């Protein structure tokens, strides 16, 4: 297979996807061992989306994330230790344990916030795009959200404003077919959610969300459009989540229409398939293994760091509400 991308770039894409995968497998382990408070929504299976999109970005660009946000953080190079510590509710986490999995914020990586409100982050990311336009910088914003978030009013209001004002933003639908148990096809009438773009006069693109290079390509075009003042793009990435909605969801609803649904998507695993793909492109098993080892070490360090970190002091509950009170 041919690609315009360098070997180094391909390896780095693989590294990121593999890191997401391994990181979240460890999150799931913590849950199973009863060491994780609350719940987490895993990105397993959707790795190519965040990886491909973020590959098209600059360091100072902005990301609006979701309840299923670990992948976005990893793709932006967030610190795995601080992430895992946050997920375990430790004082050393990104948000000092106040946010948890659903609210990890990493401002140093341009992550404006994960958000527990479906659709809640879309206008916020749009505001960051307005801010970039206002300040006259070269920055753009990316707003990630799920298929079902496209049915919230904030989706509509945000895209309309971005379209009217040519804001530098990319809207990325992570269409994994479900909002919890509800099949998006039962609550919406269009085959492709990208068609929503038609109502706003902006481009709407459908992309194979299991193919990291396809995603990157679509994102690059959208980023170029945004940076050159031509406004937003809506990209729909067709993807699938390996697990239930959250770590505790058996996901019985999936067998409802097609008993083979999960299996057929898993065959197209973005991590495994991309591994095969790059091995067919002058990259050696050894090079890949080296990356996997390094990732493994990084993940284990994060796990240990998180485990060994202390819980916050109860008095901390009363700080950080305001910057000054």
């Amino acid at each position, binding site marked *: 297979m041919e690609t315009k991308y360098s070997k180094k770039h391909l390896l780095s894409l693989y590294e990121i996807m593999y890191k997401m995968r391994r990181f979240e497998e460890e999150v799931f382990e913590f849950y199973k061992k009863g060491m994780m*408070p*609350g*719940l987490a929504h895993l990105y397993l299976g959707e790795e190519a989306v965040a990886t491909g999109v973020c590959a098209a970005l600059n360091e100072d660009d902005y990301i609006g994330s979701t309840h299923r946000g670990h992948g976005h953080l990893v793709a932006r190079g967030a610190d795995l230790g601080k992430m895992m510590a*946050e997920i375990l*509710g*430790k004082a050393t986490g990104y*948000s000092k*344990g*106040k*946010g*948890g*999995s*659903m*609210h990890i914020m990493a401002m140093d990586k341009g992550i404006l916030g994960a*958000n*527990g*409100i*479906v*659709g*809640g982050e879309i206008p916020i990311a749009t505001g960051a795009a307005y801010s970039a336009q206002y300040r006259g910088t070269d920055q753009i914003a990316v707003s990630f959200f799920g298929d*079902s*978030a496209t*049915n*919230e*009013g904030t989706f509509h209001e945000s895209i309309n404003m971005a379209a009217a004002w040519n804001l530098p933003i990319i809207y990325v639908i992570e269409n994994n077919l479900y*909002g*919890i*148990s*509800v099949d998006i096809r*039962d*609550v*919406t009438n269009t085959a492709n959610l990208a068609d929503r773009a038609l109502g706003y006069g902006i481009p709407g693109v459908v992309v194979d969300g299991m193919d990291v290079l396809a995603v990157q390509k679509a994102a690059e075009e959208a980023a170029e459009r945004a940076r050159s003042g031509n406004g937003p793009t809506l990209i729909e990435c067709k993807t699938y989540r390996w697990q239930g909605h959250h770590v505790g969801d058996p996901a*019985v*609803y999936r067998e*409802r229409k097609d008993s083979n649904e999960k299996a057929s998507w898993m065959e197209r695993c973005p991590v495994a398939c991309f591994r095969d793909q790059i091995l067919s492109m002058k990259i050696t098993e050894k090079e890949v293994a080296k990356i996997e080892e390094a990732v493994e070490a990084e993940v284990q360090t994060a796990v240990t760091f998180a485990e060994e970190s202390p*819980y*916050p*002091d*109860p008095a*901390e*509950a*009363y700080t950080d*509400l305001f910057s000054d009170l």
Partner: protein
Amino acid sequence: MREILYRDAICEALDEEMERDDRVLLLGEDVAFIGGNFKTSVGLYDKYGDLRVKDTPISEAGFVGMGTGMALTGLRPVIELMFSDFMLVAADQIINNAAKITYMSGGQVTVPMVIRTPIGAGRSSAAQHSQSMQAFAAHFPGMKVVVPSNAQEAKGLLKTAIRDDNPVLFFEHKMEYSNKYMIDDVVEPIPFGMANIVRPGTDITIVATSSQVLKSVKAAEILEKDGISAEVIDLRTIVPMDRETIIQSVKKTGRLLVVDEAYERCGIGAEIGADVMDDVFYYLEAPIARIGTPNVSLPFSPALEFPLIPTVEKTVEKVKKMMK
């Protein structure tokens, strides 16, 4: 009597009312095929079908508004909001619309709609999934506000809510769903506006809501050992409020503590204190007091979250202070 989970008591109330009246229908996210995020409608989809037990898209303002339209045209919708925090996504439809239409129409129409939604912290669900929205609901006129304390109460009050011709906000406590309770074989509707003295006492009146009722009873049992006799009142409904029962009790005990899990500021404790003040002032032997959630966002880490939640211990301690 029989044993039942709180969540199943909710489900039974829904089922019995739907059975009784085919104008009743249920809408919300994930209420149908999987029977609800907290499993409060298991089986109803199979029994009543897709039109009557409806999985909605994630469009809270939209489907609450649809509920209002149904209620105006002869149906009696029950709307589930997955977490009471999401009332804020639909706040305009609830407060500016559903709650005001009867009034704005000069009484031409009624809006018989129930919005059921879980409140409460304790699951490390963090700031956007842990709030208790009953004071918010009570602040605005036009909604009845129900805060059941256990499975029997939940079942009886939910039936009343569904039969009521007005918008009712029905708050289920999410830490209760998996709790087991004994309930009557047949649970009759429990009238709104009648508080329930669940434990008589003479030294102090504790008015509690939702899961704080049981906690208050436990506190009262502990206080008993110290020779303090606490009367515990299950408020049941915040709107309408049974002022009389509270006033009579405080006149007897001379002390009032309100325990409710909503944020403290402009909360239920403040309201009850202000509401009965004129009637009880000259009987008071100590300042009226309240326990609520302190005025900060709810944190994720259990190390931070648990200290913020009203507990049996906090109630015991507060009462002891009030008795000094």
